[in-house]
């Protein structure tokens, strides 16, 4: 009797699967690009913070604009989105210091800013940002190619109940060379920074081309460090693990990652900058975000307006304490801005030691043989997982 009903169960399943896949596919096909007049729309590709409602809503209200912001957690991904043709989607890109000057501007992925309009803002920033500020300028030193705001030291984080600040700063990256720490630490899943830090633990400067000997040392160190890690995870996991006592300290971290835990009543969680290290004696790495206008054929006029908007003392304070992560901002050099910070907020971002920590840091730079080192590190992670 069932001869006529040829829709078998299997066919039905196959059909359902195709439909499901089709619907999933549609999502990826519609990146929401409106090519019409872009006076009232602004698209921002950024690190977490600039995409928060606290920052965007006042701007939306003031300009009556539609603002879309997407946050990603590493620089190369954002830059390659532009390389893959998304320059006609985005208006602003917010990445760490070297990329604008060394990569995006030479590749014509971003455009220069009006120097006369924007350079005066640097005058009001902290002394380190006095114009012409290196990372905001092109190689020739003539074009202003981005604005600075958030920054911070970024090395590692400890629970001071387990490891004192003194010990951590003195030991520096050697902390990981002590076999006794295996199983007591975590690793933040920021693999680009992990490449730097494995180099530092191995005892050489990350920001240069590495010898075969150094690469071999890197491999050995990566395998050992990942093998000894109790957990690899995101910022929330790291802070949770520190607070609960699962781990005593974790690699890759600083004010950016520790501030939420500190603000949440855990002053024993603290970002550490080593007192010394293999980078001309320095052991810490710091980052400075540079926000640039994308080389969009239909760049929204709101892009420059937004850059200006977030320079105000009030908005700078908001950016510093946007949801998710809290950071010092260059605009704190202006007393009008600095006075907006409460004692608790200054405590969360480790203001007391910020200047000396920054002095112990080299600034984030591009690792020339990053791809090779990352592949080695990825393989080391896999090997650590019991291969």
């Amino acid at each position, binding site marked *: 009797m069932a001869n006529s009903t040829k829709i078998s169960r299997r066919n039905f399943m196959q059909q359902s699967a195709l439909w499901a896949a089709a619907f999933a596919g549609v999502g990826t*096909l519609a990146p929401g690009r409106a090519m019409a007049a872009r006076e009232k729309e602004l698209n921002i590709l950024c690190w977490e913070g600039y995409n928060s409602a606290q920052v965007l809503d006042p701007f939306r209200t003031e300009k009556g604009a539609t603002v879309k912001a997407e946050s990603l957690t590493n620089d190369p991904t954002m830059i*390659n989105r532009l*390389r893959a043709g998304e320059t006609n989607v985005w208006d602003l890109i917010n990445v760490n210091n070297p990329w604008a000057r060394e990569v995006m501007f030479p590749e014509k992925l971003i455009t220069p800013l009006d120097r006369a309009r924007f350079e005066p803002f640097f005058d009001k920033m902290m002394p380190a940002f006095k114009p012409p500020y290196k990372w905001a300028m092109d190689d020739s030193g003539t074009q202003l190619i981005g604005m600075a705001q958030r920054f911070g030291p970024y090395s590692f984080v400890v629970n001071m109940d387990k490891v004192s600040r003194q010990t951590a700063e003195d030991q520096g990256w050697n902390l990981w060379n002590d076999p006794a720490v295996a199983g007591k630490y975590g690793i933040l*899943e920021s*693999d680009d920074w992990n490449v730097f830090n494995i180099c530092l633990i191995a005892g050489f400067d990350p920001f240069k081309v590495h010898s075969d000997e150094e690469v071999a040392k890197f491999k050995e160190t990566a395998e050992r460090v990942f093998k000894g890690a109790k957990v*690899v*995870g995101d910022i929330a996991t790291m802070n949770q693990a520190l607070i609960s006592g*699962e781990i005593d300290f974790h690699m890759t971290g600083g004010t950016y990652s520790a501030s939420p835990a500190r603000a949440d009543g855990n002053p024993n969680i603290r970002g550490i900058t080593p007192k010394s290290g293999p980078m001309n004696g320095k052991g810490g790495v710091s980052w400075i975000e540079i926000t640039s206008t994308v080389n969009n054929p239909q760049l929204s006029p709101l892009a420059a307006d937004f850059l200006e908007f977030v320079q105000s003392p009030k908005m700078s304070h908001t950016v510093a304490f946007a949801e998710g992560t809290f950071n010092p901002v260059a605009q704190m050099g202006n007393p009008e801005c600095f006075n907006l910070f409460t004692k608790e907020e200054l405590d969360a971002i480790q203001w007391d030691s910020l200047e000396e920590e920054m002095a112990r840091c080299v600034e984030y730079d591009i690792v020339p043989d990053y791809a090779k080192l990352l592949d080695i590190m990825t393989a080391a992670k896999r090997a650590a997982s019991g291969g």
Partner: protein
Amino acid sequence: MFKPMSAGFRSASPVLLFLLIGFAAPLLAVIWFSFMPPRSFSFGGAPTFENYRTIFESTTYISFLWSLGLAVTTVVLLALICYPVAYGMVRVFGKWAMLVTLLFTIPLFVSENIRLYGWVLFLIKNGVLLGTLKSWFGFELESMLFSVPAIILGMVYVYLPFMLFPMTLGISMVPNETRDAAFDLGASRWQVFKEVELPLSMPGIVIGFLLTFVLAIGAIAEAKVLGGQAVIPITQDIEIAFTYSQNWPLGAAIAVLLMLIVGVLVVLALRRFDLDSFLGRR
């Protein structure tokens, strides 16, 4: 039988077009990209097997094995857990079955990540479980968080409904009178189960197996959140290739291999457990 422009074809063509654009096109794009030179970002390069060679020369197989192992373990555990529950929902719980269904369904409305972080808070040192044990009973246990069992716990938890509901459907498809008839013809409870209930509920069981297997082999959040990356599943290798490593062609190649493996396994399973023959249509 198929005339090229039959009415059926013409009315189905919008759907076909939709499938072509929405499903086939992205898939072909991924496949094509997997043959592009490493670390390139356009479709224009000269096709190469370089990415596949890289995969076969590296330790990526470890990730494949982890993903397969975790998925198989999850499916087996789910089968053992879900069959009794599904059986109970159809035959035993009566009006309570609705409540059980709701209990299993409501968590689906909460994001998977949030549920997994919930488990982190539950399992973490001094968390809900260990903290309570410590303060109430005074003994301190080693936390099981950031380990393979934690990952499996998370996967079983997350994919449970996808096994349970097809199984429930499968068991409810067995007519009561057919079971009664077998019993009346002298079969013991076990024989009724073995001869009638199990084979007749097979379609639901197989669908549950396939569904959870395909989902579980694509799992990533459990290994990241609950496993603390104690193991690297293949999906995370794909993610690393597309993010930190910025080697899109390599990521595409791993994805293609994963699709191949899953596809072959599913086809094999469907041949072994021909759903049609379970329904008696040979």
